């Protein structure tokens, strides 16, 4: 009992020391001041170099596209890892209570709209806030809805996994095409070499390969999150291990 209290007191003291140091350091980074260095360059050149009006999207996909490739990989690792850890020889859904009438009817009605909204988010990533990740998450929410409403609904992994892999391969191929055409990995060849859409800044058909990449990412994230939900919801069949 005493050991418990001592442990907690030590934890609190340790935490307060860390908090004190962080606060002291943050005093030297004043809030709200303009300290942009590379950020300013991005804001001034984003329209001519990438064609997007959403500077954050341009940073995510174009200027720092390597990070986004890494992020997509992280989600892929999670999807694979969850599948590996929760793998059993035979698994099925064990929920017994069907959703209420409101839930089942609502799910059926809303499904196409949710998916449309998700697609809208990632297709317009270069014009409005959002992009591939929120779009994909919205699409996964549509499927989660179906899982919650119906006790027998499940997604076929045989379609899901190759789709994930295919979109990932697509992203790498876009990068490699940049290497082949423009000489650099992840070079935006559509905007910079071919110049498609240069007259369209601010409208849908512009911004080089940003819509393409975001579409790929949107589909990938949607299928991955759905796969994770599916893996977590199922339980091993009785007797099967």
């Amino acid at each position, binding site marked *: 009992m005493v050991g418990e209290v001592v442990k907690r007191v030590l934890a609190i003291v340790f935490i307060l020391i860390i908090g004190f140091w962080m606060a002291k350091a943050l005093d030297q980074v004043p809030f709200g001041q303009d300290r942009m260095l590379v950020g300013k360059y991005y804001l001034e050149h984003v329209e001519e170099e990438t064609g997007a009006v959403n500077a954050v999207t341009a940073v995510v996909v174009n200027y720092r596209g390597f990070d986004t490739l890494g992020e997509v990989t992280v989600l892929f690792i999670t999807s694979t890892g969850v599948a590996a850890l929760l793998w059993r020889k035979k698994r099925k859904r064990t929920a017994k209570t069907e959703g209420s009438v409101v839930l089942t009817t609502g799910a059926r009605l809303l499904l196409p709209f949710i998916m449309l909204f998700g697609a809208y988010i990632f297709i317009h990533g270069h014009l409005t806030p959002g992009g591939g990740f929120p779009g994909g998450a919205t699409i996964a929410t549509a499927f989660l809805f179906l899982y919650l409403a119906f006790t027998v609904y499940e997604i076929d992994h045989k379609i899901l996994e190759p789709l994930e892999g295919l979109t990932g*391969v697509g992203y790498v191929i876009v990068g490699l095409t940049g290497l082949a055409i423009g000489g650099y990995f992840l070079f935006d060849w559509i905007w910079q070499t071919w110049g498609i859409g240069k007259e369209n800044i601010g409208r849908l058909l512009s911004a080089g390969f940003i819509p393409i990449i975001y579409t790929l990412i949107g589909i990938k994230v949607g299928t991955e999150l759905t796969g994770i939900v599916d893996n977590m919801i199922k339980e091993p069949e009785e007797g099967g291990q």
Partner: protein
Amino acid sequence: MSQYASLLIALPLFGAFFIPILKRISKSAVMPFLVLVTLIQTGIAAWVFSEVYITGKPIIIMAGGFRPPVGINLYIGHFATLFVLVIAVTSLLMTIFSFKAVSVEPKDNYAMLFLLLMLGATGMISTGDIFNLFVFMEITAISAYALTAYNKTGEASEAALKYIVLGGIGSSFFLVGVALIYGSLGTLNMAHIAQLAHLISPTVAKAGLALLIFGLAVEAEQFPLNAWAPDAYQEAPHPVTAMFSSFVVKASLYAMSRVIYILSAVEGWSSILRLLIILGTLTVILGEMSALRQSNVKRMFAYSSIAQVGLIAVGLALGTKSGVSASVFHMFNHAIVKLLMFLAVGYVALELGGTEINKFEGLGKRMPVSAFAITVGAISIIGIPLFNVFWSKMQLILAALNAQYTWIVALILGASLVEATYYIRLIHTIWFKGEGEKVKESSMLALVMLLLVALIIVIGIYPEPFWNVMQKAGSDIFNVAQYIKNVPLMEVNP
């Protein structure tokens, strides 16, 4: 032409994403595909290695075609290319071992995680941007979490949970450090930060650097954040443990050293270094003391590995050129030796059903090649002349004397003494105790083990050419002015 080195990153990614598609075509093609990908990666790494060492200039890959700091750049200098080669070769050898060693399903997911672990470590050492370093660190970490828990036993799950919690704390601290440094300077590019480092105020610099080091210390297995390591090493599949010990921890140590030397222009730098030396020393002492008490051989090797990694951290934190070069040499030697030892121990565990020390009695008669491999590995870690680690430990001692830290010399010698105690105890058990029937050993694995033994002895007898390479790699990290000059920074002043 040199931008094609970006295939080092694109290839494993392509391979990993392709496996789900390949699985639909033919399930049994997945593991051979893994061998193919690692083989091609080794080829590309060897080509890059020859390019960099022959021309002497690092390869700078500009992702997206934007010059740094506007775009992200990869800096493949002497150090990075050396270790990318080490990572590729280690992965290739471990894929061969995985055929036998991994029998828990689902194997295709194992293959994907394996490739991504390799990719993460390769990215960590090639990157030139601190947030990119964070992303690759997380790729490595999350693959490691999944691979640790892969065997799905209760112990593996507990080990993985400890790893995840500590890793999560570490990466959060790392991000706070990035926030502080970005808030002060406005850039994320390593060379740009090095150029502007003198502008950071001392409080922010000390806190930021300390947080970055703390964040990396989890993966780099330094005290006190290495509580996850012995369990994870013990419970992970055997090829995975070998990969953890040979390159995952080294990638984090490299990242730590890169971050430390980039910020070398800030005030209070030497006090942070002193903190790191103390932590490294504690890592060594606690590692050796714990190894002494183990009865499970794999766990004993894990503690010994942690102690060596502590020594590397101490060498890096000395703050001198000879310290860095000595640590790099030790990283290289230790990678080879631990690869051999974990391979042999894993193989013994597979054939004889466990890694308790009583299973090793009479190993000399039952599995002579594996026993020979373990013996050579053990002798070299102690630091006996004619084997590779002798030279790197000697360089560490010389560097410590140069930097006037005589107690570190005592630490190295004392650690070697303790190692001698438990390793000789193991060797005695293997060769002089117990009897047994001879077990047929796979000729493929025996070949791999003998090749590694040969490499250890070759480095032990002719260290000069290797030491030259290590010194160039060391100056890659230490000589920050040259690093800044090599990166084609663009002017972004508003």
